[in-house]
C-alpha cells in the first residue's frame, strides 16, 4: 500500500510519518501530482495559519488536486479546517470539500483558554475511522479555530461549545485532533484509516 503525505509549508509533518512507521506502514512526503493521485491513501497534515497555507496550496496547484482525489483522504488539524468552505483565520477561502465554516473559539469564562490544548474526549463517534469505539476516548488537541457540529460531524468534543472533532463525507475524512500524538487511541484511528 502506498501512502502519500502532502508536503507543504507546515510544521511537524514528520510526526505523521513517524506514527505510520510505528504501525509498520510507510508514508512518502510529497507534493508531486502523479504520486498524490496514484497513492492508495493521502494524508493532509497541518500545523500553521489558514490563509498563508491556502495561498501556498493555490500557488502550487495543490488545492485543485486535493479536491479531486478519489482515494481515502485524511485531513488532520489545520488539514480538517482547510477542507471546509471558509476559515475566520485570516478570512481564508478554503477547499470547500465540507460546505461548512471554521470559526474561532470565543471564551465565556476565565478557564476557557484559547488555544484549546491538551487531552479531551471524543463522543458520538461514527463511521469507519472509529470502528469499535464504544466509549468516549481521549485524544490530543491544539487549536484555536473549530468546525461547528454539522451534517458531516463524525465525532464530537465539548470545549466551550460542542464542535466537530472529526468530519466525514464520501472519501474525505478529517480530524481536528492529532491522532499521531494521541497514544494508542490515535494509533487505532490511523490503523482504521489505513484499512479503508
Amino acid at each position, binding site marked *: 500500500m502506498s501512502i502519500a503525505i502532502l508536503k507543504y509549508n507546515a510544521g511537524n509533518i514528520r510526526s505523521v510519518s513517524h506514527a505510520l512507521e*510505528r504501525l509498520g506502514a510507510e508514508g512518502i512526503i510529497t507534493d508531486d501530482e502523479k504520486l498524490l493521485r496514484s497513492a492508495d491513501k493521502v494524508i493532509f497534515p497541518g500545523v500553521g495559519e489558514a490563509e498563508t497555507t491556502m495561498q501556498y496550496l493555490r500557488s502550487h496547484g495543490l488545492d485543485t488536486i486535493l479536491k479531486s482525489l478519489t482515494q481515502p483522504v485524511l485531513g488532520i488539524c489545520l488539514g480538517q479546517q482547510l477542507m471546509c468552505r471558509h476559515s475566520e483565520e485570516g478570512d481564508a477561502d478554503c477547499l470547500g470539500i465540507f460546505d461548512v465554516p471554521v470559526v474561532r473559539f470565543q*471564551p465565556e469564562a*476565565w478557564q476557557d483558554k484559547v488555544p484549546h*490544548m*491538551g*487531552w479531551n474526549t471524543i463522543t458520538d463517534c461514527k463511521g469507519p475511522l472509529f470502528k469499535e469505539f464504544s466509549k468516549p476516548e481521549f485524544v490530543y488537541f491544539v487549536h484555536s479555530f473549530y468546525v461547528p457540529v454539522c451534517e458531516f460531524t463524525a465525532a464530537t468534543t*465539548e470545549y466551550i461549545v460542542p464542535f466537530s472533532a472529526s468530519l466525514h463525507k464520501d472519501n474525505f475524512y478529517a480530524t481536528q485532533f492529532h491522532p499521531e500524538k494521541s*497514544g494508542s487511541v490515535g494509533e487505532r484511528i490511523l490503523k482504521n484509516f489505513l484499512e479503508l
Partner: protein
Amino acid sequence: MLAKRIIPCLDIRDGRTVKGTNFVNLRDAGDPVELGRLYSQQGADELVFLDITATHEGRKTFTELVERIAAEISIPFTVGGGIHEIHDVERLLRAGADKVSVNSAAIRNPQLIDDIAKNFGSQVCVTAIDGKLTPAGWRCFLNGGRIETELDMFEWAKEASDRGAGEILFTSMDHDGVKQGFANDALARMYDLVPIPVIASGGAGTKEHFLDAFTSGKADAALAASVFHFGEIGIPDLKSYLDSKGIPVRL
C-alpha cells in the same frame, strides 16, 4: 472534558537520564527513550526532556535523542535546556519536538518569546520560570536558580503571556525537591493572572499534593520527576486517585 495533565520530567546529560531510577522492568533505565515510552504506556499525558549538558557535543547528542523520541513516542513532548536563540528552537522542532521550554534566555532577551510565537505559533512556546519568595516578594531566578534577579515573577509571567507564550511552567525553588507539596498560593495567583495554561512544578511528594495543585493551586497540569523515577508514585495509581476525587484526567 479537557483533562488535567500529568507530566514526568527527565533530566538529560550527554543523551542519558541523569537521576537514577528503580524501574526493574526497563532494559536500560538510563535511556530516555525507554523511560519515556514506559511513562507514555503508564498514562503520562506529556513528557518534558530537559538537557542539562553544557557542551556543544552534548547538544548534538541531545538533538539526536530528540529525533529518536519523536520517532518512537506517540504523545506530545517538550524539550528545554540550552535554548538561547531562535536557531536552537528551529533545530529542536525540526528534530521532532512538539514544544520548547525557554527560561533564562527569555529573561535576558524577552523578544525570543515573540520570535518563537511568530515563527512557530504560541502553542510551541513554554516559558519556564524558576521563582522564589524573597523578602521583596516572588522573584525570578536565572541559570537553574543560581542567580537572583530583580524581576517580579508575576510581572514576568504576565509579560511572557502578552508576548505570546503558550504556557507557563512555574517551578517554586523553595518547594522543589522538598516533597511537601506545590506552591499552591502562588500557583493560584498565576492562574488568575495569565490567560494561558499554568504547569505546576516543584514539591510533589504524595498523590494529595497533585490534588491540591489542581484544586487550590488551580493548575492545568502538574510536573514531577523523582516521585515518578523512583516509583514512589505510579502514574496509573495517581490518575485513578485524582479521578476518584473528581479531577478530570485521561484514564
